[in-house]
């Protein structure tokens, strides 16, 4: 569906920022040109979430995506991985509609990573701040948790090749 209309400004891509706050923390920021309630919806409804969490350029699709978005609720994402599957799962610790989500990533061998997402709306746009607190420096670097799929190397190549070709759908 093409949502770009003459009357509407073409959605421009906003800058994604990444900062390594400490040896155990990574922070990603991005502004989305929409009110927080819509951005929050895209983060909390499984059928929407699964459409963007794994970028097309990453070359993978989620096999399944279950999300029970409420405090104490669980989520489980299943990816194809080589001949088998890889699962990411955890528990929602905080669910504050349109402003804050906190969940754990429990698939790692060395403790839980806690992801905090805040939705901060100003003038119809929403600043997203995704903060990952890793149990250890090693966990962050190895990408053993959901925040950093281990096949990122492939992504790098893909992005490089996509740079020269046009977007394919």
């Amino acid at each position, binding site marked *: 569906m093409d949502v770009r209309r003459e009357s509407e400004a073409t959605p421009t891509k906003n800058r994604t920022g990444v900062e*390594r706050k400490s040896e155990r923390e990574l922070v990603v920021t991005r502004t989305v*040109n929409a009110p927080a309630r819509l951005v929050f*919806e895209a983060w909390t409804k499984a059928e929407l979430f699964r459409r963007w969490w794994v*970028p097309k350029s*990453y070359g993978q699709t989620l096999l399944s995506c279950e999300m029970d978005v409420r405090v104490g609720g669980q989520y489980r994402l299943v990816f194809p991985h080589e001949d088998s599957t890889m699962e990411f799962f955890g528990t929602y610790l905080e669910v504050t509609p349109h402003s804050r989500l906190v969940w754990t990533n429990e698939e790692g061998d060395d403790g839980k990573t806690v992801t905090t997402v805040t939705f901060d709306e100003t003038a119809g746009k929403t600043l997203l701040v995704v903060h990952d607190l890793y149990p250890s420096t090693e966990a962050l*670097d190895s990408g053993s948790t959901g925040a950093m799929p281990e096949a990122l190397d492939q*992504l790098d190549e893909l992005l490089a090749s996509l740079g020269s070709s046009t977007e394919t759908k």
Partner: protein
Amino acid sequence: MAQYGQAHFDASFGALSDATRRGVLEQLGRADASITALAERFHMTLTGMKKHVGVLEQAGLVSTEKVGRVRTCKLGLRGLEEEAAWIERYRQFWAARFDELDIVVEELKWKEKANGRKKRK
């Protein structure tokens, strides 16, 4: 990730976790310095500073050279460049993800508009 130099990143991020070592890197960013000078500046023993410099050197963040009886330290650029590359790769991944999020959210906006902004919540 293994092919991307896992051990190197563990070492360099570990090295960066210490405030003194970050200070040393900052200092060396301005000018090369001897271990003695660094020890004085950071109010620690020569042995203590040697240990910190050793950690930084192992991580490839600092290189040292002995000239006469003085060991001079300077920044090892390679390490920092690789870290910057690591962060950039991570950034690109999220940028790609957010570009997809934009599409989903634009659709939600469009639907909301099409529904005449019916209050449904």
